[in-house]
């Protein structure tokens, strides 16, 4: 039984739901719900596990960074990174201070309800065709956890193919959803998890409102040059 090449998110979602015998309707495949899908990415669940299980003990500082091309808005980047800060640590953002330039790049310093502080660097000025750069580092009294290997600045790939015409790279992480991009896999996995347990809608909606408020606060902080308490 070969690995199936998935072409669309909808096809992949239907395939997963069928395989795992989760009842669904055609409408479910077009589900439009703020699910914070990055929470389903393996690297973030593993970072969260490292914190939750006490492998890194007593986090004190977060160092997050996410740089993309022009097609991703700063607001969307902030939404994702703020939610990841809360997901990985299990604590909520209670205050922040932001400094952006021309709505294209900048940083936010956040404080969580347990006193942990974090830097969130964001920007959408990578040239077309460049791979996104992201980093999520948790510095604790015991240990550091990160999704970037030591002594490098950029995320690694699984496959590097060096040819006369240039270098191709690939990073495939999910054999059941082979063929989809990392972001597509996050969305499909999130919808699948939601449809398996439909009771989680209130949590997602509450989190969505909270993170949107944090993003708004960051934009306001940038304008007012003030720290904002949420």
């Amino acid at each position, binding site marked *: *039984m070969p*690995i199936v090449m998935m072409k669309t998110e909808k096809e992949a979602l239907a395939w997963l739901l069928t*395989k*795992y*015998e989760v009842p669904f309707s055609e409408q479910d495949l077009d589900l439009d719900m703020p699910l914070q899908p990055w929470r389903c990415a*393996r*690297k973030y669940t*593993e*970072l969260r*596990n*490292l914190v939750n299980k*006490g*492998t*890194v*003990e007593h986090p004190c500082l977060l160092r997050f960074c996410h740089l993309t091309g022009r097609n991703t808005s700063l607001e969307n980047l902030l939404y994702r990174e703020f939610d990841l800060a809360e997901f990985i640590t299990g604590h909520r953002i209670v205050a922040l201070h932001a400094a952006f330039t021309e709505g294209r790049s900048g940083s936010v310093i956040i404080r969580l309800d347990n006193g942990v502080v974090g830097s969130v660097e964001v920007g959408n000025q990578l040239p077309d065709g460049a791979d996104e750069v992201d980093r999520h580092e948790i510095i*604790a009294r*015991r*240990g*550091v*956890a*990160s*999704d*970037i*290997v*030591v002594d490098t600045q950029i*995320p*690694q*790939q*699984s*496959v*590097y*193919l*060096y*040819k*006369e015409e240039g270098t*191709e790279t*690939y*990073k*495939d*992480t*999910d*054999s*059941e959803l*082979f063929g989809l991009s990392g972001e597509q896999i996050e969305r499909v996995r999130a919808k699948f998890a939601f449809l398996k347990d439909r009771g989680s809608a209130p949590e997602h909606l509450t989190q969505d409102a909270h993170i949107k408020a944090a993003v708004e606060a960051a934009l306001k902080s940038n304008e007012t040059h003030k720290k904002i308490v949420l």
Partner: protein
Amino acid sequence: MKPVKIAILSLTHGHTRKYFQTLHDNPALDWVAVSAETEEVKEVFYHYGYNEIPCYMSDDEMFDAHPEIEAVVIASANSRHLEQVRNCARRGIHILSMKIPTFDLEEYDEMMKLVSEAGIVCQIELEMHYNPVVHRMKELFAKESLGRVSAFNATNITLSPVWAFPWQGVPELSWGSRVPLREGDGRFRGGALCDHPHIFDMIRHLTGSDYEYIYAEVGPNIRPDIEEEDVILVNGKMKNGVSFLLDPSWSRLEERLKVPAPGWEIFPKRMEVNFNISGSKGVMLVDSFGPNVYHNGAPNDRYTVQYTYFDEWIGLIDEFVDCIRNHHTPLINLGWHRRTIEAVNACYESVRTGQPVYF
């Protein structure tokens, strides 16, 4: 599709615990029972929390209590595989075999005959075929992205499992008998080489060729207190001219834990399957288990790779179910896999003679 009623035998193989979640989650399976070789093994099994699965102290006791069992994962020491295959064939039970059915080719041929006559599925567990990175590599090969392949170099290097799975450190249980590596060497066949057939298989798949000759050399053990080889290098040529270098060593040191747990590794990355392949159109570097996430926290405050790749077992089991229900032949069946076993045997023969072995 009716779920396949499945059980696990013995629970002593290092890969045993990899199946627990898949057997539990996959609706195409009905996990009926397990058999354990010792009370200690049983206790470890229940430590994983699958308390609803009955555990028996012998295969026959389990089979007699559950005549509905259709298939098993044979998760035992290599030395037990033949008797368990005989038992399953007699009962008409499908088999998912660990990566080494046996190194004894007479036993191997008996297994092939038993499986064929019983009309059962026997799939060999070479899980790398269900790894998404390897799948990408296969696609790139299918597109001939490298042109004419010239060199195929691969690692399958890990820590040594002998402290957690002691049979792997006993030549009779791993290799099948006590055969010295070479004259004057106090070590015996059955170590790292026996643990890592994957790259010997993958080169055959990806190049579409067969071995022409193979040469192997063992180094001094980095664990002087085990009686099998732990570092070994292999090179040679395929019949289509591709040269190869394979490293199947246990070259990553470990804490000597009795049960695998956080802190097992001393070197940060405890398992690596990397490929470095050259061809007329370029070069491909592949890390089948990376990138990951990393930490230097508990329990030992050492820099450590926390793996994010786990799902090989899902695809492997999906294929097994498909073969049972739809009467397909597994990609890695006994017939295909025999040559890989012969290649491993040839490495030991090369170590013994100090010369390449021709096929």
